[in-house]
């Protein structure tokens, strides 16, 4: 069984202010064992309408897993962005086996019943 917990990622919610578009990227170490971008070309964070206006954006992360993650926000060349908060939703997978690492699940010898 994996030494580190593997997490299922659901979504991330970002609250920000910006005067232009920005890009959000989410990297994890699975599959492959190395941090890599999992959102393709990235998710575009639209402008909030001005640096004085708040916007909340939720980005789906379904099907993404990893033991490590790295969120990244990159503003456009003429964009200023203030990231106020961000919340990631995840859950640990109880038993995650990576066959490429010869991991296996094996119980103790169990006396079932009362």
């Amino acid at each position: 069984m994996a030494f580190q917990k593997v997490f299922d990622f659901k979504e991330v919610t970002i609250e920000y202010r910006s005067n232009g578009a920005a890009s959000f990227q989410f990297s994890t170490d699975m599959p492959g064992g190395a941090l890599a971008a999992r959102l393709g070309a990235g998710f575009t964070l639209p402008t909030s309408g001005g640096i004085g206006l708040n916007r909340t954006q939720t980005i789906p992360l379904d099907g993404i897993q990893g033991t490590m993650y790295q969120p990244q926000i990159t503003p456009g060349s003429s964009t200023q962005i203030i990231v106020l908060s961000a919340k990631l939703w995840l859950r640990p997978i109880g038993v995650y086996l990576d066959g490429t690492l010869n991991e296996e699940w094996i119980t103790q010898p169990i006396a079932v019943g009362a």
Partner: protein
Amino acid sequence: MASEKLKLFSKIEIEIISNVAGTLAILTDAPGNAMAQRFSFATPASSADGNGNCLRRTVTSRLPYNTQGHLIQAKLTPGSGQTSLYRARVWGRELPGGQWEWFALPVIETPVEFAPAALPIPPTAEEWRPEALPVPPTAEEWRPEALPVPPTAEEWRPEALPIPPTAEEWRPEALPIPPTAEEWRPSALPVKATPDVPDWAELEVDA
């Protein structure tokens, strides 16, 4: 204790998401009173949804009719891929007269709900706060500033005048008197010598 009674096992069921086939082996301690593999079967890979994500599925297999033991052990070995295991249970009954029932095998639970995890973003304060600029403050009150005038001492101090000091003791001072010699010395008196042959002297005679 649960291990006192022999159990008969009929089925095993697991719940997985897997992108690769694997093998599930069942070990028991009977017969022989030693843990040994009694059965194994291939677990298939899960099918994928439209986004390519594998779906959760149950995999059930019947066990050989004589699979029994005081102890049971399960071992899941995936192929060269990833497998998530969510549940495992075995259908069995106590011998000789127990009822068939599911016995859960211990699998670390995967929560149904997602939990929030705050990302490390420093908070932005809702309110403005004053920030002092680096301007030295001007004091409300005047303060004395000493001018560069050397202070006049409150007390008198002795000041030595330039008078050579008079010695406390007498010292001999030689007076300017030529010394008298201890010995006599000859001194020629102003007496004209008488010649042996007198010289003639011419005297003027009144005519």
